[in-house]
């Protein structure tokens, strides 16, 4: 069976009927895993408590119970809300996540769309979520939501720039914007003439990785950059008026985005679906590639949630200062250095 899959792996790519469920799975499964493993369990252990224990073995069915709860709840629209915008906002946010999943390679052929400018596309569609959040904040007719939405817009736009600039270093080194090309460049690269483990860009682009992760933390509005949803100040910011299924959509969007950004980081800095020791052209990667990518993704996602539950929250002006006065100059320096080394070496 595996050999059949491995020999003719592109068959599932062709059919729309198979693509859609796999796409849904690729968004929901990592999001659910992250919620259970990190948000429910790992964090509980860090905070010296057990987390959910009753629903299923070790509370593993808790998320299903929560989803069931949200589905049953009334979908409340505030009286003064702009109904259409209010209803559409969660879908805009979720759309951004789904568009991001499209370009992530999980194997040599296991990719939805192999765009030549894949990472460029990713950076572009990741900004779409800002619009959804702004829509949610504005249409809720709630002052906390408004403050949260405006904060989110300012923050996401400010951190778009370091995010893109951090990626530029990788693109220069790989010589391509194609996501598969970036993976292959790492798989076939050499560290000082030794090609034993390829050349994961984390070794050369560690500054880029640091900036990327900080910017991702801000893009995902996780602590220490969670002022758009700061629960001790703004109740829950732009989410305040949402309930039921629309809140669930935002919730999925948040954690699926965490998964997707972790996967992009895994592709850019840790070689994506590649593991050393196997020829990257080997078709076996179409089968084990998704698992390898998922493993790397989960490791990076752990960082995101570890930081989230460790640090206090910045203030809005401090966040902007960090972006414009520290991260952007640092990433520009990183690009300059990468470019110089690329020319010299």
């Amino acid at each position: 069976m595996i050999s059949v899959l491995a020999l003719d792996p592109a068959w599932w790519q062709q059919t729309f009927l198979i693509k859609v469920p796999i796409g849904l799975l690729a968004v929901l499964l990592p999001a659910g895993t992250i919620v259970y493993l990190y948000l429910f369990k790992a964090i509980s252990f860090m905070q010296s408590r057990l987390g959910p224990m009753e629903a299923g073995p070790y509370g593993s069915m808790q998320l299903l119970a929560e989803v069931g709860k949200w589905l049953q709840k009334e979908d409340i629209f505030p009286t003064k809300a702009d109904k259409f915008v209010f209803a559409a906002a969660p879908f805009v946010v979720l759309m951004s996540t789904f568009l991001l999943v499209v370009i992530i390679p999980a194997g040599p052929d296991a990719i939805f769309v192999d765009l030549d400018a894949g990472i460029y596309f990713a950076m572009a569609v990741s900004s779409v979520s800002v619009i959804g959040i702004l829509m949610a904040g504005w249409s809720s007719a709630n002052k906390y939501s408004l403050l949260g939405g405006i904060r989110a817009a300012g923050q996401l736009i400010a951190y778009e720039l370091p995010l893109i600039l951090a990626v530029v270093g990788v693109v220069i080194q790989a010589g391509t914007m194609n996501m598969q090309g970036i993976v292959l460049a790492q798989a076939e690269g050499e560290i000082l003439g030794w090609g034993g483990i390829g050349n994961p860009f984390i070794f050369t682009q560690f500054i880029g990785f640091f900036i990327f992760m900080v910017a991702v933390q801000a893009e995902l509005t996780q602590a220490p950059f969670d002022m758009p949803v700061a629960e001790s100040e703004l109740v829950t910011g732009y989410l305040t008026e949402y309930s039921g299924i629309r809140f669930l959509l935002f919730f999925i969007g948040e954690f699926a985005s965490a998964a997707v950004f972790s996967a992009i980081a895994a592709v850019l800095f840790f070689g994506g679906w590649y593991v050393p020791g196997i020829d990257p052209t080997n078709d076996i990667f179409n089968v084990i590639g998704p698992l390898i990518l998922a493993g790397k993704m989960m490791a990076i996602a752990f960082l995101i949630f570890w930081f989230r539950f460790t640090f206090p929250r910045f203030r809005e002006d401090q966040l902007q200062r960090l972006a414009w006065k520290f991260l952007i100059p640092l990433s520009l320096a990183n690009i300059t250095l990468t470019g110089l080394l690329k020319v010299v070496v």
Partner: protein
Amino acid sequence: MATTESEQMAYIAAQAADARVNVEVETNEGMTLNLGPQHPATHGTLRIVAKLDGEKVVAAEPIMGYMHRGYEKLTEVRTYPQVTTLINRIDWLGSFANEVPFILAAEQLMEVEAPPRAQWIRTVLFELSRIANISLFLGDMAVQVGATTPVFYAFRDREFVLNQIERVTGGRFHPNFDRIGGIKDDLPKGWIEETGSVIGKMRDFCDEMEELVLGNEIFQARTRGIGVIPPNVALAYGLSGANLRGSGVDWDIRRDANVGLVYDEVDWKVWTHPDGDSFSRFWVRLQETREACNIIEQLLDGIPAGPIMAKVPLIIKVPAGEAYVATENPLGEMGFYVVSQGDLTPFRVKIRSASFSNISIAPWLLKGVFVPDIISILASLYFILGDIDR
């Protein structure tokens, strides 16, 4: 001043109308944000009305009274021993500490003094409730600036202290243990040794909080230079406790105006911090928790033997007179002004609670800060709603 009843009513109505105008009318100069009475950061039902320009606060005003329970009036229909049941619900986190000043005031009126052993045990429990109270502040302050984890450590470790209080008094939160002329029961067997180990745990907790919260760069960025109270302003607004000492005023009732507790017997230090900002208030409270550990440890070594109750009549009738006793409670100065007319019940009790004065500085302090700083400044002032509204 309004003198007749109708004038008074008119005055109150005008006040109420003013409050309504402040809250409801939107001006062109910005937005009125109504924080509370139901808001995650108000520790209960404090309401803050803030006029905003963008995220900057133009004016902010705390509106109190959503949890007014009328304790001052209720004490007038309760006998003296019954009053402690009520008043330990004022500052519900350090409840034993609430009972002490009232009992001391009543003792002053009756001219009885608790035997030394009772005084020592009182002081130990007083300091234990200080640790139980402030340890929660150390975690809660971190929550208010956005770190979710420390408060769980605070709840976890506070439980050890509450267990010790429970073993002596029978109540975790509301001990109702202090009596006129002494205390209700003696210490249980092995309690002193256990408390010693709990003190060790609380020291570790303080170290943990110092590393996790106080040493964190983001926490410092959020609190340093924020909400600065100069010493003269702190005194003018009647601040007390760590808020006052955080502004560099070296005043502690335990040292400077001690009544009835045995702080003179131990070697301890009053901590002050010159900056007067949110950070210094946190710092002072952290050091005070450590100092409380030191005090308890020294007291446990030398609890004298002897009776725990002085000779008091079975039915307590307090002779006519007036007495005011204040103690340095976890939140600051708490004073009871007791007027007796020789009855079974007090004629009038005026409660001077720390949080009420501490929160009164909020309009002055919140002018010109950002919305997130409202929360962090209020958290650093550290009030308990029951202590504000009584």
